[in-house]
């Protein structure tokens, strides 16, 4: 191969990478622009405290949106993700307590519970062959029941040393929650994306029958995607316990986080039809969604207008993809 051909191929690789990451990069750009507007209008300006507060709120939704991403990549949907989130919140308010060793086992217990919930979803959807949307609505009800069993009334406690460590700042004003999120990305998402398993998940999302014909282990890959989704939701559940110090089986929270996770995933450039996008895009999608709410606050919008405004922004952002319709020349492509 000549040098020229090699360079051309590298150019092609780069273009391919850019095409694949376009949604993620766009979400990143939008987030940076919005966050800049937010901090420049905030009375305290771009200070470590402002960033830490924003990070703590953003990381919660980011983790749940990552959980949703795993499932959406397989062309499924997890409508129980918010319920796993509050179930783990309630569980954490019971067991993430006491000495360092007890706390460690508590954290492991919460993570295992989330993993088990995700695995249950996966088993029902894949081995039971039920539609994900119906199956996860039903398991969501069951998870909510367990959460209510654990915490009928809001309450409980959490290891405050650990909670404060993870919600405050590291030296230099770096928010600890953002670092924790980075660790989650490096430990769970990157290895998953680089592994054979991750590629199979993308293949399944693009075309399940093509993946099947290529001899890939599609059922195992989908199962692990659902299980990892549960794990990510449980990390989110741990985190909200660290932020609030309590456990609460709140139906409103569960529903809100489920809906917002879908919105965040879409904003982050993950295709609901599967096989396109990345959890990193979903993180920025979640941060964008949170920043919209914060922007309303700094611009002093009447709180009564906030839900309507958020809804309209959500609606407009999901319609952005419709611009592709302008380029369609063959009407049959509409239905594709």
């Amino acid at each position: 191969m000549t040098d020229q051909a090699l360079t051309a191929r590298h150019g092609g690789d780069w273009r391919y990478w850019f095409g694949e990451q376009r949604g993620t990069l766009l979400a990143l750009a939008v987030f940076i622009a919005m966050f800049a507007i937010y901090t420049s209008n905030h009375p305290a300006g771009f200070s470590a405290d402002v960033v830490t507060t924003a990070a703590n709120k953003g990381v919660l939704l980011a983790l749940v949106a990552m959980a949703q991403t795993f499932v959406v990549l397989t062309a499924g949907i997890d409508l129980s993700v918010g319920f796993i989130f509050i179930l783990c919140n309630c569980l954490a308010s019971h067991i993430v307590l006491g000495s360092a060793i007890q706390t460690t086992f508590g954290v492991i217990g919460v993570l295992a519970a989330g993993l088990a919930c995700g695995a249950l979803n996966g088993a029902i959807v894949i081995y039971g062959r039920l539609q994900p949307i119906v199956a996860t609505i039903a398991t969501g009800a069951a998870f909510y029941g367990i959460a209510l069993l654990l915490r009928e009334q809001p309450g409980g406690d959490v290891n405050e040393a650990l909670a404060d460590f993870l919600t405050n700042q590291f030296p230099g004003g770096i928010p600890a929650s953002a670092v924790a999120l980075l660790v989650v990305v490096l430990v769970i998402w990157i290895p998953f994306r680089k592994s054979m398993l991750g590629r199979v998940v993308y293949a399944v999302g693009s075309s399940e029958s093509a993946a099947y014909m290529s001899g890939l282990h599609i059922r195992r890959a989908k199962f692990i995607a659902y299980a990892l989704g549960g794990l990510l939701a449980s990390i989110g559940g741990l985190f909200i316990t660290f932020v609030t110090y309590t456990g609460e089986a709140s139906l409103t929270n569960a529903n809100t986080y489920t809906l917002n996770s879908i919105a965040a995933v879409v904003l982050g450039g993950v295709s609901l039809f599967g096989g396109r996008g990345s959890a990193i895009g979903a993180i920025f999608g979640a941060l964008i969604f949170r920043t919209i709410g914060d922007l309303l606050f700094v611009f002093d919008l009447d709180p009564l207008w906030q839900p309507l405004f958020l809804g309209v922004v959500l609606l407009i952002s999901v319609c952005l993809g419709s611009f592709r319709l302008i380029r369609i020349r063959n009407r049959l492509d509409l239905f594709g």
Partner: protein
Amino acid sequence: MTNPLATLPVLRRLDPAVLTAFGCIVLLLLFGAMRNPNFLSPDYLLLQLQVGSFLAMVATGMMLVILLGQIDLSVPWIITVGGMMSTAAVGWGPWGATFAIPIGVLCGLVFGLVNGIGVAYLRVPSMIFTLGINAVAQGFMVLRTGGFAPQDMATESMHDLATGRLILGIPNPVWVWIAVGAVTVFLLRRTVFGRAIYAIGNRETAAYLSGIRTQRVVLAVFGISGALAAFAGALLAGYSTKAYQGMGDPYLLPSIAAVVLGGTSILGGRGTYLGTVAGVILITLLQSILSVEQIPEAYRQLIFGAVIVAMLLLYGRGAKVAA
């Protein structure tokens, strides 16, 4: 023929899923009767049908949408819109009080049509677009009520429609259900519009190429779903004498579950209204038994979720993946 049921013409037309659903209803009735002899009294059963008719309104709209292969997740707040706007109309003078229910239904229709525009013309996946409309409808209601539960009372006529027993001692909502059901069955089985719904659910491209204006059909179906959800909200407001925020929340999961348990494919194109009727009765009886047994809310949710998964595993399974 291997299927023994096939020898009976009536049974041959019935979906096995619908038969299973009715079988489950009989089992639930037997179970309920064993625990409490009053369970089979006509009064109690009529009460179940009355409560179930609210769910049936929502499930009817949901079924039409699911037959298209779409889903309507905006139901919770459109129900609330229906309830709140119809009670709000009462405050607009005698004219408003007379047309309270139509005004509520009209508001639901508008939200439903916006859903239809998003799904049919903007081609946004219905799951995400209807979620957005749900949020917008919530936003409007929060704005209108100032964030508090308004003490808007339902009119006498709304209350009568939801609780009275005008004819033959059968609750009025059950008559409403029968009327809506008859229209739906006629629509699905005897009109071009109904056949178009099934055709689009099977493959929209093929339906379009056969000359069906698919986008208009989708728009209309989402409009109907919104209107029916709002109508359910108006009935509910009449039943509980007032409208309140969150009144629609307990209806999303049961309405989807009722449709799917009734044998309608969530992928669209297949399902009968009889199945949805079975699904609604099934869900209503299940919820009723769980509350009669005085099981705490936590276990109720747990059992409800588990039973739905179990029933779906019994007969709602999809096909194996193949090339």
